[in-house]
C-alpha cells in the first residue's frame, strides 16, 4: 500500500494541509477534495487545456500534475479570480464580448490569458494567439476570445 503524501498548498489564497494519494491528479484534488469544480476535465491528456490552472503563475494542465507535486506551491483556479464579489477584468471582458458559448473551455482559457497578461500587459494579437494555443474551443471560434483578452488588457493596464 502506497504511503499518503502530506502537502501544504495555497489554493486561491487559502492555505490547505492535505494528505493525498500519490496517484491523485491535481485536477481531481481540486474538483473532488477541495470542491473547486470550475476546473474542467476535457481530454485528460494535456491537449485541450480545459483543466488549465496556474502554479506559481505558470499555466499548466492540471490533468498532468500530481497532487503530491504541489507541496509548497501557489495554485490559482478560476474561482480565485474574482475579488470581493467583483469579477476579474478578464471575466468581465469575456461576458461583454460574448467570448463564451458552452463555457467548458472558458476557465482554462481565462487562466491562460491571465498568465499572459501578468507577464505581458500589452500583448500583440499574435502573442495572445500563442498564449491560448493550448486551449481548444469548439464553439465560438477564437475571434471573440482574442477580442476579450485584448479588451481586458486595456482595462487592466491603460
Amino acid at each position, binding site marked *: 500500500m502506497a504511503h499518503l503524501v502530506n502537502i501544504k498548498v495555497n489554493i486561491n489564497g487559502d492555505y490547505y494541509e492535505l494528505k493525498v494519494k500519490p496517484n491523485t491528479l491535481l485536477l481531481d484534488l481540486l474538483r473532488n477534495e477541495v470542491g473547486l469544480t470550475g476546473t474542467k476535465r476535457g481530454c485528460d491528456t494535456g491537449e485541450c487545456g480545459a483543466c488549465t490552472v496556474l502554479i506559481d503563475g505558470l499555466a499548466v494542465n492540471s490533468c498532468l500534475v*500530481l497532487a503530491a507535486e504541489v507541496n509548497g506551491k501557489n495554485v490559482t483556479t478560476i474561482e480565485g479570480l474574482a475579488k470581493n464579489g467583483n469579477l476579474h477584468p478578464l471575466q468581465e471582458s469575456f461576458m461583454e464580448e460574448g467570448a463564451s458559448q458552452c463555457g467548458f473551455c472558458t476557465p482554462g482559457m481565462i487562466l491562460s490569458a491571465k498568465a499572459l497578461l501578468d507577464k505581458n500587459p500589452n500583448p500583440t494579437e499574435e502573442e495572445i494567439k500563442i498564449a491560448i*494555443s493550448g486551449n481548444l474551443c469548439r464553439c465560438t471560434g477564437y475571434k471573440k476570445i482574442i477580442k476579450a483578452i485584448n479588451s481586458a488588457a486595456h482595462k487592466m493596464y491603460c
Partner: protein
Amino acid sequence: MIRLKKINNFEYFAPSTLSEAVSLLAKYKERAKVFSGGTDLLVQMKQRKLTPEYVIDLKNISELNNIDYKEGEGLRIGATVTHGILASSQLLPEKFSLLKEASLAVGSVQTRNRGTIVGNIATSSPSADTPPALLALEARLKLVSADGERVVPIQDFFTTPFKNILQSTELITEIEIPDLPPNSRGVYLWHSKITAEDETLVGVGIVLTVDNMEDKICTHIGIGLGSVAPTPMRAEKAEDFLKGKRVDADIIKQTAEIASNESLPRSRAEYRKEMVKVHIRRALIRALKRIEE
C-alpha cells in the same frame, strides 16, 4: 483512440539530492520511473502503457535545475529545465537560438511549462523537436547511476522508436553542448501534422560555421533531422559534402538533396523527403543571414 484509465497507485519519492535519486533507482530498477514534467509519463500511465510501482520526482534536486554557459566550454542544461525556462532564458547566447526555437516548437504553453528538454530526449520519440537541434549541436548526455557516470554523444543515444540506451538504473542528469566558434549560427525549422497533437512531420536543426562572410567557406556543419527516420538522426553525408565548400545557392541545393536522400521516412515518405530539402535549404540560408547580422 486509446482508452484512458485512472493511473495505478505507486510510491512517490521526491528526493532532494542526486545520490538519493540514483540509489532509489539502483534499488527498484525497472519497477521505478523517473519523473519531472510528466507530460509524457503521466499520459503513458493513463494509457496503462506504464505502471511503475515507484515514481521518483527529480524537481526537488536543485542542482538539476540549472542552465549554465561558460565561454569556450559551452552550455549545460540540467534534467529539470523546462522548455518554457529554456525558451525565455537570458543565459543563452544568441548563437544557441536554435535551441529556443526547438523548445518553442514543443506542444503548447502548458506543455512547455512542465515538459523538460531532457524528458523530450528520454521519451525518444522519432518526432521530438529538441533532438534535431541537439544533434546539430553535437550535444552529449551525462548518464548517472549509483555505480558512476558516463557521457555519450546524443547521436549514440537513440536506438529504435521510443527506445534508447538508458539503463533502468540510470538517469540523464544534464545535456552538455560544446561552445560554438565565431561565425556560427543555428536554425531549427519544422512543420506539423494538422491534428490535435500538432506532432512534428519534419524537423530540421542545423548549425553552420563559416570562415568569414566574404569567402563563406563552411568550416563546420551539423545537421539533425527529426520525424524522417525511426530515430532522430544526423545527416552525415550531407555534412561531409558541405564541409570545406563555399556555401552558395548551388551547394545549398545539393546539400539539401543529399540530406533528403539519406533520410528514412516510413509513412508519407515522398512528401517528408521533399520537405527535408525545403527546410534544409531555408535553414542554411537563414543561418548565413544570422551570421552576417
